[in-house]
């Protein structure tokens, strides 16, 4: 996992690699919770382009981060998700909580539009 802070957007961009299962989810959760506290970021963008597998533990991890950032007034962006991952997000019925996009820039644009509407 690789994390980058985009301070201008108060956003942590995180690239997740490999298989997002119960074994991997715990580490991602604690790293992100720590980074949010440390940096004051309120948005998370997940780059799922290198995720080769995900199960319900990944869904649980995404919902957990959604709860954290939505309490701060932030958003979750997910981009580059495979067919398998997208299908699971659909099945879990959580798409409406997330900004799903092809690229980080599209995700950030959608986020800015949403925030403007909310003001």
């Amino acid at each position, binding site marked *: 996992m690789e994390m980058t802070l985009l301070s201008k957007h108060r956003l942590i961009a995180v690239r997740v690699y490999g298989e997002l*299962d*119960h074994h991997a989810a715990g580490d991602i959760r604690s790293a992100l919770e720590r980074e949010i506290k440390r940096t004051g970021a309120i948005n998370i963008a997940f780059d799922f382009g290198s995720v080769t*597998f995900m*199960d319900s533990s990944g*869904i649980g991890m995404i919902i*957990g981060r959604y709860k954290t950032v939505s309490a701060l007034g932030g958003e979750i962006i997910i981009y580059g998700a495979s067919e398998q991952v997208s299908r699971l997000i659909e*099945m*879990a019925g959580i798409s409406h909580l997330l900004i799903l996009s092809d690229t980080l820039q599209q995700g950030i644009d959608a986020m800015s539009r949403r925030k403007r509407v909310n003001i």
Partner: protein
Amino acid sequence: MNRMELKFSAKSVNERLARTVCAAFLLELDPTVDEMSEVKTAISEAVTNSIIHAYNGESGVVEIKAEIEGDTVTYTVRDFGCGIDDIAKAREPLYTGKPDSERSGMGFAIMEAFMDKLEVESVKGEGTAVRMIKRITRDEQ
């Protein structure tokens, strides 16, 4: 008829091992990429449940028996953990016994959606067996 058995410690590091072996066992039936990923996901759900819920962090053993008969594969994932009180309730989508641990209650719903048949047997204090059956349809091209 082809058979396979796998037995491993109930540790999260073995979740990948289990789903990879179970998916590889299926190769004989020439599955599609989607069928492979469905089997992988369903096995991952069953094994993760045994590790998280049945043993709840304690040590234990998970056993998988797989069988191919004709074009149909059957996987039985078994643990010797706490068992399930109310199986019908456990199988309801979004029900979780661990609402504080970032569980979404999707595991059984995913197993049901990705396999053709799902049977759950459980005895309180003795353990749980989850049997999943899937027919692999070879499209002649």
